């Protein structure tokens, strides 16, 4: 991985972005796209479980931005992005951009669920995560607090969207856990 790619990625910490805007603006994405071999490097960073989560998150955002698209036709590329996004979802500071179970998928939730492969493997470990979702807004936080929505529920919801199956999760948490258990392979 070249220093210029790392420098651009490390200037952007997606975990600190509170809005729904992508962490990398058009200028940064343009800079990356102009670097020879950047796409392969970004795929490598996104798929590197030992890399800092913020760097993996930024690499995934850069690949999703649209200028670089060859990775979408590569099994390894798609799986790397799915893995990076799942780690980002789990540790994110705000979950509106991922979605609210049973209501909507956010910008990143939609993109993760639409990936053709690697989504099951990436989201399955999150089905055990009991950490509460961090939802901003008015009705959204009320719904989330009332239902006790957790990372596990959001992962399950996105998994259902990925598989094209209905989200029929019961409101009761214990019953919902049984619904989630049935989603596991």
């Amino acid at each position, binding site marked *: 991985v070249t220093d210029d790619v790392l420098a651009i990625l490390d200037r952007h910490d997606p975990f600190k972005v509170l809005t729904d805007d992508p962490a990398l603006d058009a200028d940064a994405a343009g800079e990356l796209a102009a670097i020879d071999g950047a796409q392969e490097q970004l795929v490598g960073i996104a798929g590197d479980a030992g890399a800092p989560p913020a760097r993996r998150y930024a690499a995934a955002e850069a690949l999703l931005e649209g200028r670089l698209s060859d990775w979408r036709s590569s099994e390894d590329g798609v799986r790397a992005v799915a893995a990076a996004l799942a780690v980002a979802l789990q540790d994110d500071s705000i979950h509106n951009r991922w979605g609210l179970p049973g*209501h909507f998928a956010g910008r990143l939730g939609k993109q993760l669920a639409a990936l053709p492969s690697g989504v099951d493997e990436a989201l399955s470990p999150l089905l055990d995560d009991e950490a*509460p979702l961090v939802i901003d*807004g008015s009705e959204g936080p009320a719904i989330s607090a009332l239902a006790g929505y957790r990372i596990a529920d959001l992962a399950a919801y996105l998994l259902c969207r990925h598989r094209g199956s209905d989200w029929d999760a019961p409101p009761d948490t214990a019953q919902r856990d049984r619904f989630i258990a049935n989603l596991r392979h």
Partner: protein
Amino acid sequence: MTGGVARSSVTTVRAVDERTSGPQPVAGERRAAVAARPATVPAATARPAGAEPPQARADPLAGLLARAVSRRTLARKEIKNGAATFKVDPYRKHLPDEDGTDTQRQVGVEVGVEYVPPGTFKTAKIAFVQTIKATRGGAPFLLGKMSGRVTDASDGEAGWAVDRVEGRDSPNYGQNNDGTASGTITFGFDKQLSWWGKLWDRSVGDAKMWDYVKITRLAGQAVTCDAVSWAFDETNGTYLGGVSWGFATSGGGTTTLKEPALEAAGGPTGVHKAALERWNAQADLDEAQRNSPHQAKVVVP
């Protein structure tokens, strides 16, 4: 706030133990709250959860009194609107233990609003339509599809919108897409029971909504939120008045709740009416720009 306070208002206030009312705040805010927590925690918040305050150990009665006025207290406010009554309960800050700490974290308010119609009222459904405006760091705070229906300066004031979570069709707060009430709303109605029947069924009539506004702030960022909960008689297509509430968090991280008040005795006017019109305009946009594919229009008075 806009719009005039019409007939009546005012009020009784009493203390209620938060443990006995309403859903409780979600504990722990993962990365935002934990990673950004200050190195030194104010003494008042350093007490282990559930531990008695110092004065309670010294004097049991003083401890009871202290608890009654501590962070566990909240106000119930009743606001008369002619023969009807709005009740605001609960009404409390989100994460009061962290109030005044200038950290990255969610700030907000938990609020319940109940509309008690006059005993002679006849309707099959009372819902709530809510208008809201929030800012963060001086900029409008807009999420998801809300930016597609927000008022601008030409409406008299920028930033107001009908408050519905993305993916929901109805403008009625808390209403599911199949028309049923979600857990955040109880629709009011009159079963048109006999006088005798109403003696036994005390639940008739009241509409209740529960909201929990949370907005993540960065250290140093001020946050504001103003909202009006409008009781709406869907059967007869008329508004039954609206109650304003909200909060402001200073750049230093101190949150102040706004005093609930009767915004109007009847229907939305001014910028609130404009927000309803903006909702209806959004419903006419392409599907991708709507709040939901089947976004239903709202009654504009």
